[in-house]
């Protein structure tokens, strides 16, 4: 399979760009799955906590943004990888 791709790349220079685009698309799509689930969990649980204890809202919101920031980082690495893989 890999030999086939190498041979095809040498035959057609356009194919290389096409395969790179497909790879970049798959890489970003895969990188977005985990963080999507993660952010959903973080925000969902934060809302539940706010509903149970409205007086702790400020603290919970700050912690929620922290959790989102840490989770989101992985998706953003995927986004950067998208441009690296395409060029």
């Amino acid at each position, binding site marked *: 399979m890999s030999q086939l791709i190498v041979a095809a790349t040498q035959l057609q220079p356009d194919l290389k760009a096409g395969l790179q685009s497909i790879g970049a698309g798959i890489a970003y799509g895969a990188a977005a799955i985990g963080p999507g689930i993660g952010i959903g969990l973080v925000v969902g649980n934060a809302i539940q906590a706010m509903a149970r204890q409205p007086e702790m809202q*400020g*603290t919970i919101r*700050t912690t929620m*943004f*922290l959790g*989102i*920031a840490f989770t*989101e*980082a992985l998706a*953003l*690495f995927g*986004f*950067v990888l998208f*441009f690296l893989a395409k060029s």
Partner: protein
Amino acid sequence: MPVLGAFVFPPIDELFRWKDLWFNGSPLAINKTVLLVLISSLMIVTIFILGSRKRALRPGGVQNVVEMTYEFIDNGITKDVVGHDAGRFTPFLGTLFLFILFLNFWEVIPGIQFPPTSRMGIPGFLALLVYAVYLVTGFKNQGFKYLTGHLFPPGVPKALYILVTPIEFVQLFLVRPFSLAVRLLANMMAGHILLTALALLTAYALDTNPGILKVIAVGPFLLNIGVTGFEILVAFLQAYIFTLLTAVYLGDALHPDH
């Protein structure tokens, strides 16, 4: 006249590279990015000088804005996250927050519509600055225990150190600054590309051959307005998150068991 199928997105470089305006070719060349950074710095300094020049007991106008911003940073970020004894970090965190906020907001200002934070130079430099500040604070405050406390967290079984120590090392010295810089960069870059793509789609749809198909332009146009509103939120949120994470790292450097 292109039909709908002829939509071509320009190469990414075209959206982020600007021609030099002055001092062409030298390392001090000034382009749109640098110009926006200088203008925003001047704006922040001017607002704060105006706000603190005549200090009235009952604040009004500019002074009110300046005092509210300071209080937001001091109460919401420094005292809550770094610690109650860390008032000396408020100026640093406040400068960081306002600088990033002003730079991000250029993304949605009509006629300019380019966030300078979407070029790696600015988030990269800010992340390196934060990196230096929290490492120096940590080693100054806790000495060598800052490093050992991180690499060998207490309460972990001894055998697990083989796994935990390398992870913690990479986390402390590589992942933290890298993710700080990339988070800001990627968010602003994604927003800029999204707005450009929607604006281009509108323009292309207005350019289609049979006149009736021009109706398609309504979709991306309305979406563009909505996304602009969302980007205002993102601009504020990214400035806030950058400052908040800096505060967390500083708090970690000041208080070991935090």
